[in-house]
């Protein structure tokens, strides 16, 4: 297993946000976690990135205990494309991408990754000198995803990449996720758009109120009547 999470608990003061979560991520796969607002999806990704502390549980990455500090975690090969994008609005597109490669010193390989990102997102190449804050919402999401690639991660955590985007763009973003997979990246995708997420994922977990309530191969989960009713907007017949 590339990533092995066992019995993970997170508290925010008195709020018990994750209540013993077990998740496994296999290398080269797209794993999705679906769940409604407040289920604890972002909490899980932030715990993996080390920006919030876990109160209990273990996380192993590539057979080693996951480092604690966010910078060590990025070096170990995990990057996060956060909810709300969090791009650097007063830096240019190119500078934002460069920030993604902050911990790297391999100049030649960084340039190759720039080329890869611009190939996936030609729109970013056209706008490489533009100040990121002036990009449209969709372009900002592309920038955030491109930046997430620039640390040359083995595992990419995506937090609701389709949030607030028009349907056309949502399709583009999901195609990009498949491009990432084709590059050999492993993907942990958190989504509320369960329909799209399940259509590209290999394996799925359903998170409700801090607990995994169901897991299985993505097509199986998509066929489950409870899931169809709760997340796919279908009525039980």
């Amino acid at each position: 297993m590339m990533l092995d999470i066992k019995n993970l608990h997170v508290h925010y003061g008195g709020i018990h946000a994750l209540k013993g979560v077990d998740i496994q991520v296999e290398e080269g796969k797209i794993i999705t976690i679906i769940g409604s607002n407040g289920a604890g999806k972002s909490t899980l990704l932030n715990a993996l990135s080390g920006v919030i502390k876990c109160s209990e549980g273990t996380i192993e990455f590539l057979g080693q205990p996951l480092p604690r500090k966010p910078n060590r975690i990025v070096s170990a090969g995990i990057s996060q494309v956060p909810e709300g994008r969090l791009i650097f609005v007063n830096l240019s597109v190119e500078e934002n991408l460069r920030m993604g490669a902050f911990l790297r010193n391999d100049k030649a390989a960084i340039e190759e990754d720039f080329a890869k990102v611009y190939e996936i997102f030609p729109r970013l190449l056209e706008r490489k000198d533009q100040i990121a804050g002036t990009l449209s919402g969709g372009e900002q999401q592309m920038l955030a995803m491109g930046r997430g690639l620039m640390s040359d991660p083995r595992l990419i955590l995506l937090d609701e990449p389709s949030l607030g985007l028009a349907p056309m763009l949502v399709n583009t973003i999901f195609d990009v996720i498949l491009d990432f997979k084709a590059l050999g990246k492993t993907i942990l995708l958190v989504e509320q758009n369960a329909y799209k997420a399940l259509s590209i994922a290999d394996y799925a977990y359903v998170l409700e109120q801090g607990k995994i309530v169901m897991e299985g191969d993505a097509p199986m989960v998509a066929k489950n009547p409870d899931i169809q009713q709760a997340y796919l907007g279908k009525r039980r017949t």
Partner: protein
Amino acid sequence: MEKFIQFLINGIAIGSIYALMTVGYSLVYSIMNFSNFAHGGVIMLGSYFGFFAITILKAPFWLAALIAMTGTTLLAVVIERLAYDPLRRRQAPSLYYIISAMGISIFLENIVLATLGADFRNYPPLFQTSGFYIGGISIGKLDVLILVVGTISLFGLMWLIEKTKIGLAIRATSFNLRAANLMGVNTEFVIFVVFGLGGLLAGLAGVMYGLRYTVWPQMGLITNKAFVAAVFGGLGSLPGAIVGAISLGIIEAMATGYISSNLRDLIAFVLLVTILVVRPSGIMGKATEDKA
């Protein structure tokens, strides 16, 4: 005209001391979004460190400055660890930081009052007597020293911020701490460095201020001027802080020279209020809602 030029040079000299005080304050603000009122206490202690280095150890200027800067750097970093780090761990709102900062400032002031008394102390005259005369303008040696040392330090700082990796980390953290963290920037270390840099320059400012004026326990109050300068330039913007501080120095020198030294501070604070009304983000500031 000669008078004007002389006031201008005085103003730039004192303005560069304000700039050294202001940048530390502004750097901390840009990353942590609160006004570090403890900075005044650090400058004050720096001034005392320099004073005792010169009077007791008979140190020359450069050694006194070095001793003071070492002391204030350590002090600033220790304050961050003891007073602010615990708040950050609890994600406390910025009001808590301000209260903590004020507490530290009062604590430092009273420690000095209790141990050294309330006297004003004058540095031995290392520089002021002789000056340069160019045309009809006389420039004190001390002002020249302040200008040179101030300019070198400020350019050094700008270089560090604009051209180095740690500088990039500082800028990224000031734009968005959480995002910087996710990019692998060690934001804990950035905060440590920022307090250290602020302390370093505070020590230098303290010694030069003491040399030019005097040292006393409440001298931390002059950081109000650093605050004015930072707001004037735009809180959180480093070039803004420097421009603001030097402008303030010039305005003060002009007010002293042409009007009255009694009105100097009044003019400075009227300026602050006016700027806040006319242009709340300052001349080069980043727009934020909460200017605590």
